[in-house]
């Protein structure tokens, strides 16, 4: 493990573990969910031991993800309050995507996009969990009227799709912004990275 003592600590071990539990759950859920969502992706059920196992496992994984997500949510909630600057950042996000971050306002630990993503994921998880319970045939569906189940199925599919898109963006953003992924792998980022992308946080951390 290569460590530069001057690197900045972005996530502690517990946070990273938490993230990855959620992340792994998400991947399992996305793969199994997509398998059940689109016929073309049904063969993905093979990854889980076939269709029946996919159907059995998916909701349980969902529950695990929800539990860990809730922990994570409360861990990071206070860091994700939108501020005026964040909205300013969001307005200028297009410039950033185009590769020009010179005019972006200084960001704290999270930028406006990340924060929006955070809140969106929170909402999506809530919807997915609630609708997931409703359409969980083995234990819960019998308690809901058919109209609710149908709406549940639709919402579950729609929010799952949105969430997958959001996570793709999330992952891509991590890949695109070089030096990001290690934050979630070893917990640290380079000072340069911090200064470049989260200058306010950088200042805060190094005390300037």
């Amino acid at each position, binding site marked *: 493990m290569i460590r530069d003592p001057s690197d900045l600590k972005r996530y502690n071990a517990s946070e990273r573990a938490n993230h990855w539990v959620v992340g792994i759950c998400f991947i399992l859920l996305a793969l199994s969910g997509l398998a059940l969502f*689109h*016929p073309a992706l049904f063969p993905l059920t093979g990854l889980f031991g076939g269709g*029946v196992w996919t159907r059995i496992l998916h909701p349980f994984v969902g529950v695990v993800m929800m539990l860990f997500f809730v922990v994570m949510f409360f861990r990071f909630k206070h860091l994700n309050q939108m501020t005026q600057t964040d909205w300013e950042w969001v307005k200028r996000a297009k410039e950033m995507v*185009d590769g020009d971050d010179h005019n972006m306002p200084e960001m704290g630990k999270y930028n406006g996009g990340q924060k929006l993503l955070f809140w969106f994921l929170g909402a999506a998880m809530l919807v997915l969990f609630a609708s997931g319970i409703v359409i969980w045939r083995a234990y819960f569906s019998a308690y809901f009227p058919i109209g609710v189940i149908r709406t549940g*199925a*639709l919402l579950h*599919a729609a929010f*799952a799709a949105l969430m997958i898109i959001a996570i793709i963006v999330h992952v*891509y953003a991590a890949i695109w912004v070089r030096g990001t992924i290690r934050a979630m792998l070893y917990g640290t980022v380079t000072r340069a990275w911090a200064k470049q992308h989260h200058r306010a946080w950088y200042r805060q951390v190094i005390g300037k």
Partner: protein
Amino acid sequence: MALQSLDIAKRSATTTEPPQARKTIEVAKLIDVSKCIGCKACQVACMQWNDLRDEVGSCGGTYANPTDMTDQSWTVMRYAEVESEERGLEWLIRKDGCMHCEDPGCLKACPSPGAIIKYANGIVDFHQENCIGCGYCVTGCPFNVPRISKKDSKAYKCTLCSDRVAVGLEPACVKVCPTGSISFGSKEDMKELAEERVTELQERGFKNAGLYDPVGVGGTHVMYVLNHADKPSLYSGLPNDPTIAPTVSLWKGFTKPLAMAGIAVAALGGLFHYVMKGPNEVSKEVEAEVEKELEAEK
């Protein structure tokens, strides 16, 4: 694809067409409620033929038993005592079960390839070996028909005795029906028979007698002759105008390509963005600044 006893029209969770060259006659079961005495012979014939035995339940204060369809009871009689000024008391008895829709909501909803098959003759059949037990068929069905077994978590419902029809026999309930309330034949013949019955009922004063072959699901391969076709819901809640619920249509229709497109766009967008714009790396300036700052600290 090898030959099977019945040609396939539609297959659940399958994006391509099954072989469509052969044309078979569409069949239908016609249930004439004006001849039904609610004897439940059809229920017994169904359990005998299909090797099903439900639990011995209890009396809930009506004639209906089992009180609802289950994985072991694919058809049940429903009894309604209806009083009207015009006709006094009527005991409207309806055999409930799968309607074998032309546009089956269950098949539309099913995520497992080949778990639900619509044969070219109109029969909608569940293939439990492919069923994953998700219950989406229940969600998709406009008639509340499929039932998930508590034992094996598979979905079950009336097969229209596809095994009998495949060898040229009528379904077991049709054969057994002692009053001739249930008929079976080509859909065309059944519609003609229904017309005959409707005329007869109208002569007997049932002005609104008619055929129940709801267009909302593309017609059905189990149809009713109702003496009050203007009010199907009188018959223990037969849907007046059943369709696949808009939520289900959206879920299994528009949402699918849209979501896939969305996901694809996101993924490809990322790829092309990366290719075209390159990575977002820490600028040399900042790196230099930070170097300096570190030096300073030291």
